[in-house]
């Protein structure tokens, strides 16, 4: 059975891209940009929040580390795929090669005193998204997340 893309997506491009300075201050703009695309898909509030959290973690990482101590730009691409209906968000930067998927998973059974926060953000993203992939190609970090709608 073919799943049709809901709402106005058919009338719009199936891919939208935002090129923006990779700064912490711009996380909100990136979130707004992605949410605008999500609205057309009529996705649930919960899915939207999970995606917003993923943006905070992933774009936040790029803003903090990719070009440190300088700044640079990042590209955020939103695509919609069918069968099953899903949104794919790609974060691209030209900064220091960094594979967030290679970080060690945090031990979530430790007490407050023993707890480390490192790696928790990417762990949350892995748990809430349906797919996540990383590649370094032609001088670019390319991180892709997929969430079924």
């Amino acid at each position, binding site marked *: 059975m073919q799943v049709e893309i809901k709402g106005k997506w058919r009338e719009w491009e199936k891919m939208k891209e935002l090129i923006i300075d990779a700064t912490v201050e711009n996380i909100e703009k990136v979130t707004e940009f992605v949410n605008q695309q999500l609205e057309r898909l009529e996705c649930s509030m919960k899915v939207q929040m999970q995606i917003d959290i993923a943006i905070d973690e992933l774009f936040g990482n790029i803003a903090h580390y990719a070009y440190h101590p300088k700044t640079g730009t990042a590209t955020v691409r939103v695509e919609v795929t069918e069968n099953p209906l899903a949104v794919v968000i790609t974060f691209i930067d030209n900064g220091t090669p960094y594979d967030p998927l290679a970080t060690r998973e945090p031990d*979530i059974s430790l007490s407050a005193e023993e707890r480390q926060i490192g790696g928790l953000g990417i762990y949350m993203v892995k748990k809430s998204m349906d797919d996540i992939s990383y590649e370094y190609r032609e001088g670019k970090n390319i991180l892709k997340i997929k969430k079924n709608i």
Partner: protein
Amino acid sequence: MKITKTQKGNSLYLALEGRLDTNTAPELEIAIKGSIDGIEELTIDMQSLDYLSSAGLRVLLGAQKTMNKQGSMRVTHVNDTIMEIFDVTGFADILTIDKE
């Protein structure tokens, strides 16, 4: 994010509204650090909080560690999205959580 702070004797009550994320977590950290001296009961009300990211978890962990030494901390009115985050990250075992 909006933080409403109420202090009564040794009790501090913080109500959070909006998103607790990379940009707003420092505001909560400052609000807690500025008022936590001598506090024995800390309540963080999440009734109007949409969600939190790992930056927010870091601040909650810091507050919990401080309160482990000087009293107790409760997180209240936790919605399903936030509860799932606490479950997935193991914070459900670290924090004292009232869903209501």
